[in-house]
C-alpha cells in the first residue's frame, strides 16, 4: 500500500510559565504598549468575570459563563482581528468582544436578560453571542462567503470550545471554508472540558487542530495560556485569509479554571490536583513575569492598571443596574421589519389596551 496523504500539526509556544522566551519574540510584541494593552484587557476580563459571577450570586444577573484562566485566548484573538474584519464569537469570548468595542454594560445586559445587550452601539457587523453550540461557525462561513463574493480584503474570525468541535456545524464550517477557500479563521478554546465531559471523551483525535486537514487546509495548535502565541498565530492566519491564502483552524490549549457557568459545580467532576496543576499554567502571571523581566511594568503601575479596570467594571455595573427594562411590547417590535397585522392584537394585549 502506498501513502496518499500525511499531515503534521505544529504547536506554538513563545512564553513559558515563568515568562521566559522560548522563541524569538514576534515583531508586534516588541512594542511595550501593545503588550500592556493585552495585559490590561486580560486583567479587565478577569475582574469583569469576578464581578459578573458576584452579581449572579446576589440575584442581580442571570446565568453567566466565566472565562477564568482563558483570558489569553479571548484577548489574544480579540487583539489579532482588524477593525474591518468580522467576528462571530461564542459565549466565553468577552475579552475579545471588549476589544471589538462591545461595551461591558452590553455584555452584562445580555447575561442579565436584556436583548439590547446584542445591539452593540459601537460595532455593526459582528455577530451576537450564539448559545446553540458551534452554530456561529456557519454564520462566519456565510459572512466569509459574502466577503469573498464582493472581493473585499477582509477576514472573518469565529471561535468555539473543544466540545463544539463534535457538532456538525463545526465540521460543516470546516468543509465550507475549505471548499470555497474562504477568508475564515476558526479558533478553538480547548479548555479541556465541555461542562463535565473531558476532552478525551469528546474525540479520539490526537488534536482538534487536525480536523482542518479533513477540510483541506491548515490546522495548528498554540499554547492558549500564552497571549503572545495566540495573538501571533491568529493575526498571521487572518493576514493569510485577507491575502486570499485561505482558511486556518487554530486550537488553543488552555484550562477552564472555573465552573462551566454559574449554574455548574465543577467540583463534581474536576480532580482537585489537576485543577491545582492547571493554575500553574494560567495566563496572566506569565505575561506579568515577562513584563517585569523586561522592565515594562512596575508594581505601582500594575496596581494602577488593576484599579483602573475595577473602576471600569464598576461603572459598567452601575450602568447595567440603572438601565430601565425594555417595554413589554418590545418583544413584538423586532420580530419582523414590519409587524404583521395579525400580531397587533397580541401586542395590544401585552400593553393592556
Amino acid at each position, binding site marked *: 500500500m502506498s501513502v496518499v496523504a500525511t499531515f503534521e500539526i505544529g504547536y506554538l509556544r513563545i512564553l513559558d510559565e515563568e515568562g521566559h522566551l522560548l522563541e524569538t519574540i514576534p515583531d508586534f510584541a516588541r512594542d511595550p504598549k501593545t503588550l500592556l494593552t493585552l495585559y490590561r484587557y486580560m486583567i479587565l476580563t478577569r475582574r469583569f468575570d469576578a464581578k459578573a459571577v458576584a452579581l449572579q450570586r446576589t440575584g442581580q444577573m442571570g446565568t453567566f459563563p466565566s472565562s477564568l484562566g482563558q483570558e489569553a485566548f479571548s484577548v489574544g484573538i480579540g487583539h489579532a482581528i482588524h477593525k474591518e474584519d468580522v467576528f462571530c464569537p461564542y459565549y466565553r469570548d468577552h475579552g475579545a468582544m471588549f476589544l471589538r468595542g462591545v461595551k461591558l454594560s452590553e455584555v452584562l445586559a445580555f447575561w442579565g436578560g436584556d*436583548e439590547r445587550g446584542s445591539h452593540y452601539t459601537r460595532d455593526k457587523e459582528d455577530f451576537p453571542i450564539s448559545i446553540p453550540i458551534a*452554530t456561529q461557525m*456557519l454564520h462566519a462561513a456565510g459572512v466569509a*462567503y*459574502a466577503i469573498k463574493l464582493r472581493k473585499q480584503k477582509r477576514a472573518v474570525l469565529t471561535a468555539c470550545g473543544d466540545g463544539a468541535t463534535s457538532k456538525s456545524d463545526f465540521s460543516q464550517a470546516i468543509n*465550507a471554508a475549505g471548499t470555497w477557500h474562504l477568508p475564515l479563521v476558526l479558533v478553538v478554546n480547548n479548555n479541556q472540558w465541555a461542562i463535565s465531559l473531558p476532552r478525551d471523551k469528546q474525540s479520539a483525535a490526537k488534536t482538534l487542530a487536525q480536523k482542518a486537514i479533513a477540510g483541506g487546509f491548515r490546522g495548528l495548535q498554540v499554547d492558549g495560556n500564552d497571549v503572545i502565541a495566540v495573538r501571533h498565530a491568529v493575526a498571521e492566519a487572518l493576514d493569510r485569509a485577507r491575502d486570499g491564502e485561505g482558511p486556518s483552524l487554530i486550537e488553543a490549549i488552555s484550562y477552564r479554571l472555573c465552573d462551566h457557568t454559574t449554574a455548574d459545580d465543577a467540583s463534581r467532576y474536576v480532580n482537585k490536583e489537576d485543577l491545582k496543576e492547571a493554575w500553574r499554567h494560567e495566563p496572566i502571571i506569565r505575561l506579568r513575569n515577562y513584563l517585569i523581566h523586561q522592565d515594562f511594568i512596575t508594581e505601582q503601575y500594575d496596581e494602577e492598571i488593576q484599579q483602573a479596570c475595577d473602576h471600569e467594571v464598576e461603572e459598567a455595573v452601575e450602568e447595567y443596574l440603572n438601565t430601565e427594562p425594555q417595554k413589554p411590547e418590545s418583544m413584538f417590535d423586532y420580530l*419582523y421589519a414590519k409587524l*404583521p*397585522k395579525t400580531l397587533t392584537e397580541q401586542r395590544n394585549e401585552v400593553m393592556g389596551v
Partner: protein
Amino acid sequence: MSEITIAEALNQALNHEMAIDENVVVMGEDVGVNGGVFRITKGLQERYGAERVMDTPLSETMISGMSIGMAAQGLKPVAEFQFMGFIYPGFDQIISHASRLRNRTRGRLTCPVVYRAPYGSGIHAPEHHSESTEALFAHIPGLRVVIPSSPARAYGLLLASIRDPDPVVFLEPKRLYRMMKQDVPDNGEALPLDQCFVLREGKDVTLVTWGAMIHETRQAAETLEAEGIEAEVIDVATIKPLDIETILKSVQKTGRCVVIHEAARTCGVGAEIVAQISEKGLMDLLAPMQRVTGYDTIMPYNKLEKHYMPSVGRILLAVKTVMEYV
C-alpha cells in the same frame, strides 16, 4: 404570449430578481450546473456565474447556517432544499437563528433569506419525499411561510418573498410543478404576502386550503356547483402570518367551513384556522367546522398514498356533513 408552468414561473421570478439585484444569490445542492433536481434554477448559473449560483456540498446544515451569515452581510440568499423531508438537518439554524437574528440584535442584523423546498406528495418517490410539515415552520415566530398554488402566484409570491426583509420558508407543491400552465408576464410585480386569495366565490360553504390541495378542492367545488351548492374557495397562500380576516369574512357569508390540507391533522395549520374561527366567528357558523386532512400516520409509501391524501370524495363528504345543518 406563451403560457408557463409553476416550475417555469419560479425560474422566471429567480431570473428576474437576479438580473435586477446583484445581492440575490441562489444556493443549494445541484442547483448550479444541473439546474436543481426539479430544474427550478435551470440556466441561472450560466447567466449569473458559479459565485452567485452556488452548488453547495451536500449539507443542509451548511446551507441554512451559511445563508444566515450571507444575509447578515446584505446578500439575499435563496436557498433550495432538495425536498422538504431533508430540511431537518438545516432546521436548527432556521429556528434558532434565521428567525431570531433581528430580534436578538434589536434590529442590528437581519436575515432576508428565502428557504425554498418542494413539498407534498404525488411523485411516487421513496420515503421522505412526500412530506407536508408546514405546520412545524408556521409555529415559529419570526418566520413567514408561503405556499403558491398557480404559476402566477408562484411568480408573484416568490418575488415578494425574495424582497421581504425577513426569512421566508417558501414551499412549492411539487405535484403542481408541471400540472397547469398560465400566462405569467415577467413584469416584476410581486403579490402581497400575508394575504389569502379568494379563488372562487360562493355563498353556501367556505373551503379553505393551500398548495396542491387547491386542485382537489376546486374539483369538489365544481361538482358541488352541479348539485346547486356554491362553494367559496380560499387559497391561504401565506400560512404564516395568517390572514384570518379574509377567511372570517367568507365564513360570515357562508356560515359553513371546511379546511383541507395534506398534512397530518393533529396540530396542522387547519387546527389553527378552525381555532381562530371559533374564537372570532363562532356566531356566524351554521354547522360545526370540518377538517379534511392527511391522517395522523406516517405518510405511507406511494402504493397507499391515495388512501392518505384528501380526495375529492372526502371533501364532498365533509361538505355534505356541514350542509346537513340548516
